[in-house]
């Protein structure tokens, strides 16, 4: 802007004040964003420190509960735990920690963690999220409650099936599959949820991770007018290595014009032939 040097003198008084105002405004804005950056940085650091403190306390409580045969009442009665429990950040960190342990343990330990989630009252945090009007909170609530198998929340979760946001619908679908099995997918027929490859990979991931048993009526999916449902059916047949649908699949391969579906069916048939 050095080239704006000899700006027309006729506009001097107005121009001068205007430019001066803009200079001061940009300077103050720069200063404001610098201050905001530092504020955010300090806030993040404090939050991280607080999280680390909560994490350590939680590890201690959960360790005693899981491996040292301390009763739930004993660990929940711990004054430090009771004081921390009121903090929302603590509740978030606690649920995350429980889910993380739940992912790594099975059998009695995972049951104990589910019980801890419920009896400690942390479940109320997740239910409040589920009942929120903001979709990201609903997703969080659905995920936490379903991952920790909170069966009492099943109908509450299922009621969110008609939510307008696609991510909520997908999360509800995954939650219902986790809680009741793959047959729940039929409930989504009229929700308009698009079963694209991304949604399907999430379904398959849920099925594999939670070891969801193969439904008896897997073949129904193959007769759906919706090609994405058929594709999911084929992928599930491949995962479960079910050979009883080979005849239907052979029929489908000659009927369909969908190259992707054809390819996936032929891969399943080839695999099943090899297995048999």
């Amino acid at each position, binding site marked *: *802007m*050095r*080239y*704006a*040097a*000899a*700006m*027309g*003198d006729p506009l001097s008084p107005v*121009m*001068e004040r205007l*430019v*001066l105002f*803009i*200079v001061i405004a*940009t*300077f103050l*804005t*720069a200063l404001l*964003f*610098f201050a*905001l*950056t*530092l504020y*955010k*940085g*300090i806030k*993040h*650091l404090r939050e991280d420190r607080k999280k680390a403190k909560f994490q350590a306390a939680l590890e201690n409580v959960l360790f005693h509960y899981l491996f040292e045969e301390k009763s739930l009442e004993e660990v929940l009665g711990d004054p430090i735990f009771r004081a921390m429990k009121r903090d929302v950040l603590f509740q978030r960190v606690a649920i995350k920690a429980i889910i993380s342990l739940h992912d790594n343990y099975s059998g009695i330990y995972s049951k104990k963690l589910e019980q801890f989630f419920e009896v400690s009252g942390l479940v109320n945090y997740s239910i409040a999220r589920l009942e929120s009007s903001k979709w*990201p909170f609903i*997703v*969080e609530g659905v*995920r936490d409650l379903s991952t920790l198998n909170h069966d009492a929340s099943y109908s509450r979760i299922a009621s969110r099936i008609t939510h307008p946001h696609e*991510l909520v619908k997908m*999360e509800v679908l995954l939650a219902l599959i986790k809680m009741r099995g793959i047959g729940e997918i039929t409930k989504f027929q009229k929700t308009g949820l*698009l079963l*694209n*490859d*991304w949604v*399907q*990979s*999430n379904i*398959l*991931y*849920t*099925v*594999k991770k939670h070891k969801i048993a193969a439904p008896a009526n897997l073949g129904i999916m193959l007769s759906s007018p919706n090609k994405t449902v058929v594709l999911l059916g084929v*992928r599930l047949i*491949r995962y479960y290595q079910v050979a009883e649908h080979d005849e239907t699949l052979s029929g489908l391969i000659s009927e369909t014009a969908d190259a*992707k579906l054809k*390819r*996936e069916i032929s891969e399943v048939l080839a695999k099943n032939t090899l297995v048999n």
Partner: protein
Amino acid sequence: MTGIGILDTGIIVFNYLILLFAATVMLSYVILAAISGFSLKTYLRQNRFVNYKALLALDSAPKVSLIAPAYNEAKTIVENVKSLLAINYNNYDVIVVNDGSKDNSIDVLTEAFSLVPSDKVYNPQIPTKEVKAIYRSSNKAFSRLIVVDKLNGGKADALNTGMNVSSNPYLVCIDVDCIMDKDVLLKLAKPYMEASGKRIIATGGVVRIANSCIIKSGKLVEVRAPGNLLARIQVIEYLRAFILGRMAWSKLDGLLIISGAFGMFDKEIALRCGGYDTKTVGEDMELIVRMRRFMIEHKEPYTVQYIPDPLCWTEAPESYSILRKQRSRWMRGTIETLYTHRKMLFNPKYNILGMLSYPYWLFFEYYAPIIELTGIVITLIMALLGVISWGYFFLFLFFVYFFAVMFSMIALYTEEATFKKYQSLADLRKLAFVALLEPIIFHPFTVLAAIRGNWEKLTGNKGWGEMTRKGFEKPTG
């Protein structure tokens, strides 16, 4: 003023034209920043709960070839390739193209990865320099690796060779010396799985500066502000460009560039377009523009996606001489691409690309340094003639300075409010401090480097210029 009527009128007209240009540039920055901020917020909210690992559950996830051209990289190539082989993804292979290196890259690779000649037949769908051999590893642990040894033909030629060798439908073209996030392919592939209606022809992501960061076994462990001042200033520059610029262009569907350091492409479209142009030094930008033109001219619905997560970390030049070479090359690349696709300028057939993106690049990326230099020269002449109103001069100078600082501060704030990669307050302070220096010591230099790029283009310089890198081993300490 001078008292000479016509000269005074000329000076006033000139001043207002320049003022208009500067105001338009600044306004465009502010608008783009606002769009970016909004888009980034939406993106982060949408992606807060995404479980990228879910993609690993799908056997038919997009099959990808990572193409890594290498030229004289013997010292670091083994670590870099190992890092590429450790990426979280199922359906991918790594194609390292040794572009006629003068060092012992091939010997080093052969020894480290137990390479043996492959029976793969080279099918040059795009003409390239001669391929001497294609290797595969005899060790099952490296079964994803393919190494191609070819005669030197430049980066674009090496990428085209990799494209010819690949048997997968998607390509990720990368710089072998970049540090990739382990989830890079999961994040780049996700949009292809969600596509409905429009075909995704490319996805690109954010490149960040890795100087002084802690890197262990090819993995970024801790992000730090660079110790070197020049590299640190480039952090601010990259934050502005990627966070406040490209995000907005992506939202407007007007993205004209996907960084050469890494981007994912639909191979079929890239091949139909003829692959990378070997005659330009801006092959990354040129390919995207050509692919987009191709889709529009063939009336095929398409889109280009941008992933704002920092996925690729690169080493920035720490010396002015290397930086100058890089920036003059970037300018030559811009000139070549804009010239090749000049038909798009204000052509409504190309929608936002022709009416907004192309003019933006032409006026604010290509012309801006020339206009700035012209302004400096004319200011000097006016100063000599004694016709400068010094009050205004300093007011405008302060305005431009504070605007640049403000913009950098907004970029820094956006980074801290979103990805929070810089963990310490000291790093944030360091970066804020260089934001104060950038308009004084860095920007004028980049203007001169861009002018030099213009000069080199005029005089027929076609080289890349040597890009010496320190490597990531030293700063890891």
